[in-house]
């Protein structure tokens, strides 16, 4: 299991970034592909915005861009129909694969 996956299991989304050129590196890797320096980690602030969504059975899911610029697919909890551009808060876990969950803010 990778460091990123271990951290997901502990509920932390670690952002991989280059300490030299400051680019976010996704998916995470040890070497920056832009300036070839070693990369480092910082915890995500866990906020993002909905870019698109749909629904399977009773579960909303969608494409979310988190504040650090990474886009992931995850489930969306909302008491009403989600909206494009709506702010969401992220929680994560890992069980054989990553699990990204989002809650619409001010729900």
């Amino acid at each position, binding site marked *: 299991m990778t460091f*990123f996956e271990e951290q997901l299991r502990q509920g932390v989304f670690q952002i991989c970034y280059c300490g030299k050129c400051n680019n976010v590196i*996704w*998916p995470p890797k040890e070497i920056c592909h832009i300036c070839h320096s070693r990369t480092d980690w910082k915890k995500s602030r866990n906020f993002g915005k909905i*870019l*698109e*969504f*749909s*629904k*399977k059975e009773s579960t909303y*899911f*969608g*494409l979310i861009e988190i504040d650090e610029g*990474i*886009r*992931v*697919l*995850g*489930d969306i909890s909302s008491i009403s129909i989600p909206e*494009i551009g709506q702010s969401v808060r992220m929680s994560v876990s890992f069980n054989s*694969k*990553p*699990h*990204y969950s989002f809650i619409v803010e001010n729900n």
Partner: protein
Amino acid sequence: MNKVAIVGTGQTKFSKNEGNVEKLLFESSNNCIQSVNDCNLNNIDGVLVSTNNNSKYLGAILSESMGIQPKISHSIEHLCSSGTNAVISAYAYISSGLSDIVLVSGAESATNPGQVLEWDKSRGEFEHPIYWGSMLTKSHKRKFQTTEEELAIVSAKNHKQAMDNPFAYSNEPRTILEVMNSKQITDDLRILDCSRSCSGGASILLASEEKARTLSDQPIWITGIGQKTTSASFTKNILEDIKSTRLAADSAYKMSKIESKNIDVAEVHDAFSVCELMAISELGITSNDKSGEFVRELFNTENRMINPRGGLIGAGHPLGATGISQTIEITNQLQGKSDRRQISNAETGLVHNMSAAGTSSSIMVLEN
């Protein structure tokens, strides 16, 4: 660069049954060789296999099965567009002079688990293609006011056209209403909007100009090629377009010195209904906001210009065979051998094959 032609074609029936990949490769290769008059197997100096199957050394296995001892033999995997990438690799071997005659064979088993790109961690638990298919569909509806009926027409049209394709896995007609009332997969996808994995094999024989003249009375020339990969991750692309297709089409048109208006017939990669609308727009055949109307007109006038063999939705999607089967359809159309599917006076055709939500596209222009 030497000119390269397609001189032989062969397929197996696509089916939902479990298929043995070695057997499917052999069957379609055998059909392909039989389609060529007086084909001396000793002259085939390349054998390329296209598949997502985990079986090893298939190029050599197929060569031995066929009684061929080629100079060049290996497998090619590029998810759903493995087939066209194998054909284009054969083109490169021949045009460079490394090879003269190459057999390209693609096959897939319906039970192959290789449809999911596990590497793409940005998909989280939503790994299956239905999730990116839903995102593209919802986005198209939102941006271009595409209706559910327009999406359903793509499927109804392709199912109808597949009825005249003897190799298609589905020969059932589906009305627009049947598509719209079919099982709901997500809020934005019905089961009949989706292409389905199946078993199947497809093979073609390619040759240099000199050899092609001796092997076929109707060689079909590959005059344009365009390929583009923008990423492997689905989430690194925007939802509104398929940039890889647009860029690959630009390259293919430039190489063949044609424009989109010159295309008489095209096989496009309708993994989901929305993909056909997006593809014909990126290829310059219509525009995104008019793509639904364009397909409705084709359906109403029984014009089979787009996906005459039924596309992936009607014919089935055996990943490694799909791009080759698309190429066979355009070849047969340009040879006037498509029976009830025939587009009259077809001279220029296009093959569009893509992978993983359009992160990679391969396009070929064929001319007779």
